[in-house]
């Protein structure tokens, strides 16, 4: 019983004897695999990036957001009010945090300096918990502060830098739209999310939105539940409560799972398209390999004759040629994986994102390459194995 070691060695030395030709033969496989690995690595990297960014912003699968108006892309009629938040706090089961955003425009004045932050918002005292963003110096305002309409403000790092430079702003008094406030905290830095500076933000108690910002309608409301599986019940509770108050469904609800699903769907569709292209490329590559293997069998008819004369069985010759075909294809696949990963890494580095090594795609590529190599190697190998030794020995190149 002959093992696979010797046919593999024989196949390997045949490939090494024809380096350039072997490389050209497997080029289709290399390019196909490299393309898939590059795109899948980048896609995975992008997905991780997006989910990290979203996750950073504190939103998980246990949360829902309520938006005013219909979900049709039109500029919504703002319908949600502070009264709604009080009702929801009472009626929604297993509610953990509830965070309305009263988004307005504010001008901050400190001494002679003034600054307009990107966001000046009235929010609830749940903010640091709901969005997982604490005050790193000073503190966030409390529920009591909110209910008693205390004139306190928490600012983001960008504003702190703009108005106070390196001095601590905590305890300083500023004016927000002409109304006196005390800065009680500076928020932990969040960086840039999808090109929005999340640190260019001033937060005041939601109860002061109307008098200070002139806003009495909520732009968006963010709720978290104690557990992910409580989300469906919460949606029912929210709908019931708000429809009872408004008399119609003038709002819509998003779950984070929906966002994650959308990202996944886009990337899966992309991966599907790429895989289809790769499959075609591997098919073409496989035909190229079969072609070159047929040439090799003809070229090496004499060699096959000699091998048979000294005792090679059909199986030995068959294995030799199949091994050669599989080895060429697998080498191509591995080269493609290496090149594809390097390319993805380089591109993602340039985009300042992190590439994720596409292990699953790499495994698939190896498996498919193995199957392609075997499938397209079988016919030439059978031709070689069936050669008549006397005729093969007589064959003149």
């Amino acid at each position, binding site marked *: 019983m*002959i093992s696979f070691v*010797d046919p593999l060695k024989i196949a390997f*030395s045949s490939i090494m004897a024809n380096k350039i030709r072997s490389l050209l033969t497997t080029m289709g496989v290399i390019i196909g695999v490299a393309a898939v690995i590059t795109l899948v690595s980048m896609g995975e990297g992008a997905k991780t990036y997006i989910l990290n960014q979203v996750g950073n912003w504190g939103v998980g699968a246990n949360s829902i957001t309520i938006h005013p108006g219909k979900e049709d892309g039109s500029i919504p009629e703002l319908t949600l009010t502070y009264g709604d938040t009080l009702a929801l706090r009472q009626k929604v089961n297993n509610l953990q945090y509830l965070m309305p955003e009263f988004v307005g425009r504010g001008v901050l004045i400190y001494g002679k300096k003034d600054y307009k932050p990107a966001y000046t918002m009235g929010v609830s005292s749940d903010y640091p918990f709901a969005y997982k963003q604490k005050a790193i110096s000073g503190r966030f305002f409390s529920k009591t502060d909110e209910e008693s309409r205390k004139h306190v403000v928490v600012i983001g790092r960008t504003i702190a830098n703009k108005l106070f430079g390196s001095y601590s702003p905590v305890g300083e008094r500023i004016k927000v739209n002409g109304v006196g406030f005390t800065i009680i905290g500076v928020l932990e830095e969040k960086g840039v999310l999808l090109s929005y500076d999340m640190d260019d933000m001033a937060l005041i108690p939601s109860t002061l939105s109307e008098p200070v910002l002139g806003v009495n309608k909520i732009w968006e409301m963010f709720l978290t539940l104690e557990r992910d599986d409580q989300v469906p019940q919460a949606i029912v509770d929210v709908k019931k409560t708000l429809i009872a108050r408004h008399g119609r469904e003038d709002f819509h609800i998003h779950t984070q799972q929906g966002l994650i699903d959308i990202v996944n769907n886009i990337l899966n569709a992309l991966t599907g398209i790429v895989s289809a292209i790769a499959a075609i490329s591997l098919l073409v590559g496989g035909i190229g390999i079969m072609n070159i293997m047929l040439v090799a069998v003809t070229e090496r008819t004499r060699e096959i004759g000699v091998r*048979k*004369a*000294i*005792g090679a069985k059909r199986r030995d010759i068959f294995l030799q040629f199949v091994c050669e075909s599989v080895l060429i294809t697998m080498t191509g696949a591995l080269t493609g994986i290496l090149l594809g990963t390097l390319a993805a890494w380089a591109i993602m580095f340039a985009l300042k994102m992190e590439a994720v090594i596409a292990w699953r795609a790499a495994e698939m590529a190896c498996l498919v390459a193995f199957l392609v190599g075997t499938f397209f190697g079988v016919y030439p190998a059978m031709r070689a194995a069936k050669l008549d030794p006397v005729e093969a020995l007589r064959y003149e190149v």
Partner: protein
Amino acid sequence: MGELKLNDKVVVRVVDVTRRYFMGKVEVNALRGINLLVARGEFLSIMGPSGCGKSTLMHILGCLDRPTSGHVHLDEVDVDELDDNSLAEIRNKKVGFVFQTFNLLPKLNAIENVELPLIYAGIGFDNRRKKAAELLKVVGLKERMFHKPSELSGGQSQRVAIARALANDPSIILADEPTGNLDSKSGDEIINLFQELNKRGITLIIVTHDQEIADHSKRIVRLRDGLVVSDESMK
């Protein structure tokens, strides 16, 4: 048939062997009833003009080809009954081929070429390398083990081929015009090597049309038109 008796000294027994084949649409009767006994340790030459059937006979003796009718026993094995795989095994274990054009694999070096039959016999790397090295020493190529055929002279190549033929300690060595591609000095060296191997008890069958080479053997069988026309033992 009277003189043809199977005994334990007989290594090749050919009985009434014919071989017909078609070349295009022309039927060729290459062998028309060959009877031949070869004893262990013989040094036999098969001679005859081209087209007499000596190559066909050699292919049949070497189990590369099957007779159209008749029987061939090789080392007491009735090879008529064997399938392709078993024939390959017989070629591997019982027959050593030496060709006019050497038929070494050009991409393998000398020792790797000698190892080939051992690979197909399923012998592991260490043992086959040892055996191949010994055989190259026997044929006087100890210094050239790692040379490729392209780096060897014709005579040296043929000696590698002889070492390869000896690899599995075969019952017979079949040589087809082994000196046909060599200059006379190299040819003489090969014949000397054959004689030396024969003295060690190896059975040799050489196909040749060169009388001078045949004169070195112990017995000459002449073929004409697919029949044995003379069978003489030398002194």
